[in-house]
């Protein structure tokens, strides 16, 4: 009879374990679509066998652990790929914007330059006509406005990148704090010998997200806590302590700072990765380059036109009149600010110097209305003048546009490649640790039948006990 009670116990353990296993399967199925979920399974082990004289008989089954399936290698691969994906993804929007500013349609600075020189050519055929003179002023204003707008748009893109960064900082800080809290929770759970499955899943997900936004790398230390740090080595989460990133706005520029252990450090695109690095890189390297090239173009254009215009004679026989405003850096031959401040200073069409300089005399000559010599020279500056001896105005602009085009097309290719790689890796991960409906259903049958047979076993033991008890009436 004592043996029968042992069997009863054995049957009981079996029922419990099968029930629990079915619960775990149920949990897997309900988390089918949860992001970052790893399939959990119960590790079954037998109770230590008891000695029955000559032989050992097992005492049933217990769940020694509920563990999650986990592949460190794939996890690491995914985090690495996420860094690159984040970088390219963050570049995509600003580059699209830049392509809009430096476009190849019929409405860009190149066309404005062409129309401007064209207006001088038209004027050369009829230099005394006020309408044509006004047209030259108008086209000059259109050109200057084109440069102003481009410079302003570049600034706008820069400031929207800043906004983008600021909006992400808060969520990044929150994620770092969550990782620290999870570290604490996982540690306190696992110290009792259990595995904190869903907490680990969550932590992995957060680490992946930080990799995408900051390029953060993570590794697990001896105590099971995840240490997260930037590519340069600066710590983000250590043990149960999380650092924080803040945005330092001075004037119109935005810098990022990391507060770690009481020390505030500046961080930039060189010691970060992922989205932040991409945004900072385009804001601090690429856009300023474009800005300086556009400034160079505006500077050279303004100065050359002005010099030639000053060498000519206006209808009122004055000479030395400026057409555009001289760029702010003219005296020091510095290009900065030329595009934003370019403007036409002539308002009176009479002041347009279409003719050659009048002879100072004596006696001083006047400029005749049919004198078109300066207009002819001015209209050819666009073809003849080479900036630095290599590029005409149009070809410099074309270079700028092509630079943007190359950068954007490379980004599109890299983004597609990173995305494809990430999809493949995620699929691979799913293949190893994901929840497959077929697998769960089969397991369900398995454990259901196990439950049924345990129940059968139980009723059999029960009958046997009943038989024994009924031995004596």
């Amino acid at each position, binding site marked *: 009879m004592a043996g029968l009670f042992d069997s009863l116990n054995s049957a009981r353990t079996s029922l419990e374990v099968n029930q629990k296993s079915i619960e775990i399967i149920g949990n897997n199925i309900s988390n*089918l*679509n949860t992001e970052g979920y790893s399939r959990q399974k119960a590790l079954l082990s037998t109770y230590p066998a008891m000695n029955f004289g000559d032989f050992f008989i097992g005492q049933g089954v217990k769940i020694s652990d509920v563990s999650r399936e986990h592949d460190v290698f794939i996890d690491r691969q995914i985090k690495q790929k996420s860094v690159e994906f984040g970088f390219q993804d963050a570049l995509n929007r600003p580059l699209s914007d830049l*392509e809009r500013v*430096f*476009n*190849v349609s*019929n409405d860009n600075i*190149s*066309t404005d*330059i*062409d*129309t401007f020189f*064209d207006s001088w*050519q*038209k004027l*050369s*055929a*009829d230099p*005394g006509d006020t309408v044509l003179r006004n047209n030259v002023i108008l086209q000059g204003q259109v050109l200057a406005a084109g440069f102003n707008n481009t410079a302003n748009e570049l600034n706008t893109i820069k400031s929207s990148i800043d906004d983008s960064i600021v909006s992400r900082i808060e969520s990044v800080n929150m994620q770092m704090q969550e990782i620290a809290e999870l570290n604490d929770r996982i540690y306190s759970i696992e110290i009792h010998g259990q595995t904190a499955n869903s907490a680990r899943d969550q932590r992995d997900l957060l680490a992946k997200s930080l990799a995408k936004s900051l390029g953060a790398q993570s590794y697990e230390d001896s105590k099971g806590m995840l240490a997260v740090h930037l590519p340069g080595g600066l710590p983000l989460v250590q043990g149960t302590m999380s650092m924080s990133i803040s945005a330092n706005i001075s004037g119109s520029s935005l810098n990022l700072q990391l507060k770690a252990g009481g020390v505030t450090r500046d961080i930039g695109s060189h010691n970060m990765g992922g989205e932040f690095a991409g945004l900072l890189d385009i804001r601090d390297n690429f856009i300023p380059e474009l800005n300086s090239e556009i400034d160079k173009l505006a500077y050279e254009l303004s100065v050359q036109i002005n010099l030639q215009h000053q060498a000519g004679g206006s209808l009122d026989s004055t000479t030395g009149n400026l057409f555009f405003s001289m760029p702010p850096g003219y005296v020091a031959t510095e290009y900065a600010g030329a595009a934003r401040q370019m403007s036409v200073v002539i308002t009176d069409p009479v002041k347009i110097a279409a*003719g050659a300089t009048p002879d100072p005399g004596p006696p001083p000559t006047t400029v*005749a*209305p*049919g*004198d*078109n*010599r300066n207009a*002819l020279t001015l*209209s*050819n500056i*666009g*073809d003849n003048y080479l900036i630095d001896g290599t590029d005409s105005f*149009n*070809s410099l*602009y*074309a*270079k700028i*546009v*092509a630079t*943007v*085009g*190359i950068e*954007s*097309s490379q980004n*599109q290719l890299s983004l597609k490649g990173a*995305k*494809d790689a990430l*999809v493949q890796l*995620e*699929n*691979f991960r*799913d*293949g*190893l640790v*994901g*929840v*497959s*409906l*077929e*697998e769960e*259903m089969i397991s369900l049958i398995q454990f259901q039948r196990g439950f049924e047979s345990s129940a059968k076993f139980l009723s059999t033991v029960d009958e046997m006990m009943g038989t024994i008890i009924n031995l004596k009436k």
Partner: protein
Amino acid sequence: MKVTENTTYRLMKSNLERITTELLDLRNQGATGLKLNRPSDDPGAVRPVLTTRTQLQQNERYLDTTGHAGDKMAATDGFLAEVENILVRVKEIAINSVNGAMGPSDQANLADEIAGLKDRLLASSNAIIDGKYIFAGFKEKTRPFTENPAYDPALYDATDITTWPYQYNGDHNRTELEITPGEFLEVNLTGNELFMGISNQTAATGSTDPQHGPASADLFSVLTRMEEAVRAGNVDNISGPGGSIQAQMANLDIAADQNRSLRSILGSKAARVDSAALHQQDARIDLEQILSRYQDADMIEVFNDILKQETAFRAALNISSRVSDISILDYF
């Protein structure tokens, strides 16, 4: 390795995204007709496209300018023809007047006719096209030829322009226009070289000596003095009124030759302008072709690609819908 639902859906999703993105691109190409919509479509084509557009715009401008120049030259030629006619008529009258049978009143009539022709010459020399005097050099708003109030027939000196009957108020600059890239052509004649026989270089020095060679003459002086000579009946007295009809007839020939040679110079320039215009028109076609090669999409190819992509899209959508049809849950 197992295949989970997530794997299947992720794969379907990324494939559909890929196909729809490509389809959007192709549809955009088809709708705009351009394969270069953004710089990233073909960075290497950006510079040729922008350069060719510049050239096309210049080409249009040159066509306009050559048209302009051609019109001006044609109008000028019309006036030169008129001058030729006047000189021929004056010579006829002069020959007529040498006929000894003419009485004083006949000679007075002939002289009046010459005066009338001189007025016509003056009108031609002050011709206006499009609101501008065409024989005034750069000073197109100033009436080029006016009567010299200090003219005294007795003080006439062929080597001093201040004694001539008419004075020139324009300047000596011929107008240049650019008819092809880098080629500048003078498209008019100045009043001083055409009507007064003073070359532009001499006029530039501002001296009062016209430096007439054996082939130059002042048309106004010739006509004025011919009129005086005819009125006075002075046939061959050089120091008499008008310097003798004979002398002035010789001058008339010189003047007519001067007119003709300048007219032929203008004519050859006009021919140059015509050929430049033709060349620009041909160049335009070539430029358009170059531009099209870089930026236009091959429509047949694009439509074919769209068909292919749409088929692929339909297939992908079909597969996506069938994925959810079969499930292990149907069998339980």
